[in-house]
Structure formats: structure tokens, C-alpha cells
């Protein structure tokens, strides 16, 4: 059984990746996460090119967790390209960032982001946030991208 990477985590900080995975693992969502470390890699993955050329547009991630401060190409640019392309524009994107800058928030929403979340300093809050996100987008929400029924959490683990 192919492991379907249902969440694309775009995050340059290894610590944040570790914390996110720790939190998701508790919810048995860790295995469905694919992590890229910068904006370029994120775009390659999403547009099935470069090192991700064998990927298909038919299997888009169910959610993109996008940091804004990224090496090479920043998060808002990634969002812009994603939402500008008909093949990828329906993929839900949640910005998860330390920034509380109003302008980022405004621009993110204007570019079509589905949600904007500030990473809480407190780990308990962080955990709750990540858990809620995963549950919502992978289990509760129905996406137009695929016809697949929501993957049962148990199966993917």
C-alpha cells in the first residue's frame, strides 16, 4: 500500500519540524506528512517537477502547512504560484508562522490562503493547534481535489 503523503509541511526549521511531527505523531498523522525545507522544493513537489517529476497532479496533498520565512523562495510566493495555477489552486493551504504581521495576514488571505495560524510559543497550545488542523483538514473537511474518501487514520499509520 502506497503511503499517501496527505500533508505537505513546508518548514525550514528542523526544531519546528521535530515539534510538529511529535505533535502529529501523537495523533497518528505523522506518516502522512511529507516535509520540504524551502520554497523551491515546495514548488517542485507541488508542480511535480525536478526531484519530484515522477509525482502526479492526480495525487495532490490534502493540506499544505506553509511557513512564511523560507530560504530561496518565501512562503507567500509559494502561495501565489500555487493559487495562480488551475492544477493546484484547489489545494488547501494553511499558513503556520511565527509572524503576527498584519500585512502578511492580509496578503495571505488575498492570495487565497485557507487559514492563517500563528505558532503558539506554549507547546501545549502548539500541540492542540496542530492536532486540530490535522483532524479538520484530513478527516472533517471534504476536498474537491480527489474523490477519495477520507483516509482512515488507522490505515495510514
Amino acid at each position: 500500500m502506497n503511503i499517501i503523503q496527505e500533508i505537505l509541511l513546508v518548514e525550514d526549521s528542523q526544531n519546528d519540524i521535530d515539534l510538529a511531527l511529535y505533535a502529529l505523531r501523537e495523533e497518528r498523522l505523522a506518516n502522512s506528512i511529507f516535509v520540504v525545507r524551502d520554497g523551491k522544493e515546495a514548488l517542485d513537489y507541488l508542480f511535480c517537477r525536478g526531484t519530484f517529476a515522477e509525482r502526479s497532479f492526480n495525487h495532490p496533498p490534502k493540506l499544505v502547512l506553509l511557513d512564511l520565512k523560507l530560504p530561496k523562495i518565501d512562503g507567500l510566493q509559494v502561495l501565489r504560484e500555487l493559487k495562480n495555477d488551475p492544477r493546484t489552486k484547489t489545494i488547501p493551504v494553511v499558513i503556520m508562522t511565527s509572524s503576527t504581521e498584519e500585512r502578511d495576514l492580509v496578503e495571505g488571505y488575498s492570495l487565497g490562503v485557507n487559514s492563517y495560524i500563528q505558532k503558539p510559543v506554549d507547546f501545549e497550545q502548539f500541540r492542540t493547534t496542530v492536532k486540530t488542523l490535522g483532524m479538520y483538514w484530513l478527516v472533517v473537511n471534504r476536498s474537491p481535489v480527489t474523490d477519495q474518501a477520507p483516509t482512515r487514520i488507522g490505515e495510514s499509520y
Partner: protein
Amino acid sequence: MTVTERERAEGALGKSLPAGEQALKEFADLKFALDQHAIVAVTDIKGTITYVNEKFCAISQYSKDELVGQDHRILNSGHHSKEFFKQMYQTIASGKVWHDEIKNRAKDGSFYWVDATIVPLLDAGGKPRQYMAIRTDVTERKRAEEARERLAAVVESSDDAIISKTLDGTINAWNRGAEQVFGYAAAEVIGEPMVILMPAERVNEESDILTRIRRGESVEHFETVRVRKDGRRIDVSVTISPIRDSSGVIVGASKIARDITERKLKEEQRKQSELQLAGQSQELARRADELAHSRRALETQTVMLQSVLDSMGEGLIAADLEGHFLIWNNAAKKLMGRDAADLPTERWTPHYKVYLPDGITPCPPDRLPLVRALHGESVQMEMMVEHPERANRVCLEVTARPLRDSQGNLGGGVAVLRDITERKAAEQKVQELNQNLEARVIERTAELKAANKELEAFTYSVSHDLRAPLRHISGFTKILVEKFHSSLPAEAQQHLQLIAQGANRMGQLVDELLKLARLGRQALSVEVTELSFLVKDVVTLLAPETVGRQVEWKIDELPSAECDPVLIRQVFQNLISNALKYSRPRSPAVIEIGRTEKEGETVIFVKDNGVGFDMRYMGKLFGVFQRLHLAEEFEGTGIGLATVERIIKKHGGRVWVEAELDRGATFYFTLGSRNNSVPQIAAAVAGAAR
């Protein structure tokens, strides 16, 4: 003849003629009577005087001896013609009595008149024997007659009308003059009433005149109007005098009338022309006076104008249409450095060394302000002039206007010169300064922008980069505790918990700090806001903090204010939350939110009965991260009041505090000038009255 002589004559008669004594006596008596009355002479038939009586001698002044033997030619006055005497001789020679008046000459050459009757004494044959001449002295009468005749002649020959009338006004004399003056012949008017000469409206003059005449008065030179026969009215000057008879009784009046129509006319004309002349001469005198006056005024004005022109700080130049200078005052001399020169306009530029404002291009003659004014233009321009005594060119502001006479005809031009060299230099300096200033402003703005950018970048990176490590600390300590729970001693776990708490708190601080920083960059979004609503909202929000406490709220009705509701809500939140926090030891805690008036301003306050503080430390109160209490006593970041102050200052208001240790604190704030209008105050007063 004396009585003695008569007696002698009688005696002789009586003696020589005793017979016809009686007859002789009678004759002698007659002769005596005759001699007494008349001048008697007897001549023979040849005319030789044979007898003269005393009277004859007396009147002729000759003696008897001188007369007897002479004939009457001795007395001839030369008055009568030879014919007269011839006729006399023929009459008496024929034996007839001759009677007439004769003018004789006395011995001393004076004349006398006698009324003479010559009686021839006839002989028996009826022929004259001798002649007896009996004369009466009529000299007086004659003289009177002559005088009267002369008068009559005068009357007749007079051009004046001389009329006499009776006392009842009937005309009884009318001379030729009267005929001429009134046009009536004497025959036509004699016997007529005087009033026929009078115009109807003056008829009553006659009775007045007659009344006066009767009283013996005269009317002299009375000027009136009379009517001629032909109906023409004439102006007459009349003198009327009473006429008396020889006994002095007034019997009539004489009237001398002179036609003065012409004189009147002439007089009128003369008067008229005199008047005219007088008027003309008066007018002439007046004009002469005026002329003299205006000449004096002109002189005064000229002198005044000259002194005005000379005392003017501005140069004044005037020229006629040919370009001849009429005025070139002292200031013009000083500014141009040259006096007026009689040159054609084309040569003005090189002579006076006039340049355009660039100071290089000689001013084209047709652009010279005065030349343009001479063509009817009004101009104001700046010019540079090379002054012979000044190092730098003089900058002049020239205003030129055409000169026109009262009919609007162009007659010349006038130019006013102002030295603006200094002003220009000052302007230049100002301009340079402005440019400098602008450059500096641009520089500063750029610096500020850079600083702002830096600050933004800083806050951006703070929000990103400072929070991330805190998150990591918090996260990994949590994982550490969770994962290695069993192998970690309780103390280690406690330390790890403190690490996590520290990180969390640091996260809070960073967040607050970022909020404060953002506040500085945020523009106010002002709207009319019900402050009471904000307060209620905040109190509701803070309700959870009052759980388990006794809190007494005293909330006044607050006015509406123009402010940013989001920010002022923050102010209330911070202040009320502070009040709640620091009154925690009190039961009940009393928190009062109200307003008061101070110097026309509405002041909002939040008062608590909490722990208060020492006013000595007030300076620290509004500083960032400044706290007057231990975190163990009262939690807090030390940013709340700093935020309050920043928001109030942004509104242009003030915030201050009154407190006392252990006696609570009162925070006051105002919301700036936009909330100081009278209605606000009125509302505040009304509110206070409640």
C-alpha cells in the same frame, strides 16, 4: 415945479390978464397939474425946444438951459427908425395928435421910455404954431415889458414844455416846447384840463399837484409819465410852481415839463452798460484774482512736488512722448548713478547700462519699461543696472505706466524704480536655505524611512526569530518531561517546568512589545464613540477576573467622544484590569469610572481603592517594562500603562495619575482638542448635574 413957482406963474398971469383973469387962472392951474404929472416940453414948428418943465430935466438929466434951443435929437436913443420919426412929424405937421412910446437917452447914456403925446397947437388958420409934447415916464413898465418879452421869447424858444394852468387844472398857456413835447398845438389844449396829458393810472397825480400848489408849494423835478397826443407815452421831468397875481394870491400854476424819455432811455442804457461794465470788470478782477491765486497754488504745489520727489526713496522718472525727461528725481539719480541725459530712446540702454534680469543681456530698447509706457503699456519688470559707483549691479524693480491727459490722450510715461538688490540677495539666500532645508528634509525623511524600515524589519524578525526559539524551548522541555518522565527526578522536572514557564512568559512579553510597536505605526481611525459602551464591554470582558471577589462598580454616564474606539477600548481595558488587579487585596474592591471637568476639558478617570503606590515613583509608571510591584505580588508585563500613554498621546490627550500608597490610585485621561468643543462641555456639565 415948486409951490413958489406956481404962485409966481399965477401972479404973473393974474397981473397981465386982469380981464380974462379967471380963464388965465384956470389955464395956470391946468399947466400946474400937467407939470405935476407929466414931462412937458414945447417946441416950435421946427422942433426946437422952447420950453421944458422940471420933470423933463429930471428924467433927461439935462438942465433947462442945455435943452432950450436944442431939438429932440439930443435925446435920440437910436432905438426907433427914421420912418418912425418921419411918420410922427407928418402926423403932427398935419395938425393931428401923435401918440406913441419913445425910447430916449439921458445925458449919462442911460435909456428911458416915455409915453408921449404930441399935441400941435394950431393958429387961427388951423396951422400948427407950436407943438406941445406931454410924456409920462414908462421906463419901468417898458423894462418890465422887455423883460416879459425876453421871458416870453425864452419860453417860446425853450424845448421844454412850459404850460400854465388855473387852480382847477385848466390849461391856459402852452408854448412851442409844449407843442413839441406833447404834440398838441396851443389852440387845441388851451381851456382843456391838464389831465388829458396824463395816463389813466396817473390821473390822481393832478389833484396832489394842485393841492400842493394851492398850499404854495412847488414840485421840482418830479419824474413821471405823460401821454402825447399820438398816444405815445413819454417820460417827463416836471417842475410845477404856483403863479401868484400882483397881490400875491395864487391863481394858477406853471409847469415845466421836459421829455426825458431819451434821457431815461440813455440812462437805462448807461445804467445797463455801466452794470455790464461793472460786471465785466468784476469778472475780470475775479479772473485776475483767480489766476494769481492759482499761480501761487501752482508755485506752492511745484515746490511741494519737487520736495516730495526729492524726498522719495523710490526713483521717479517721467518722459514725454519724444523721450525727453520731465522728471528725474534724486532717488533716480542715486539708483541709476547717472543724471537724465537728453538722448533718443534707442541710446538709453548703452548710456544707462541697463540689463535684463540675467545681468548679462543688455535690455533691448523696445523692452525698456519707460519706452513701453510711452507706447501705452503698463509694465512691471526687474532690471539690472551697472552703477558707476557700485561694485555689484543694482537690481531694480521698475513699474512703468503711460501718462494720459484728461481726455485720455497719451502724453508720456512715468517709471518708478525700486532698489531690490538687497531683497533679491535675501530672496536668493532664502531660496538657497529652502533648497538646503528641502535637501535636509529629504535626507531626514530618508533616514526616518530607513529607521522605520529597520524598526519594521526588527519587529518582523522579533516576531519570527525571537518567538521561534522560545517555542522550541517550550516544546522540547515539554517533550523531555513527557518522554523521560520516569527517569527524571522530581526536581529536574520542576526545573524543566520553570524553563517552559519562562519561555511562555518571554513569548507574552514579545507579543506585548510587538503590539506596542505596532501601535506607533498605526493610524487613528476616529469616529464618534459612546465611551459608556466601551466601558460596559470591557467590564463584561473582565468579569471572569472578579469571580470569587467582591467588587463594587461605580460607573458614571460618560459622554460620547471622537476617538479610535478600538484603541480607547484598549485603554479602558488596561486601566480597569489594572484597577481590578491592584485592588485584589480589598474586599470589597471599589472601582469607579467617571468623568470630571478640568479647565474646559472633559476628563475621564478610573479609580480604585487598591494598594496604590508612592507618587515618588510616578515617573517610572508609564515606562515600558517598568513595574512598581513584584511579579509574585501582581502579575504583569509592564507594558499596559505604556500602551495607555501611547494611545492617549496619539489622540492628542493627556494621561496622569494620582495615588497614595495603600489608598488606591486614580488614572485620568483626556481625549485631545477635538473633544473640547462647547457642546461637549455642556453635555459634561449636564452629566455632572445628574
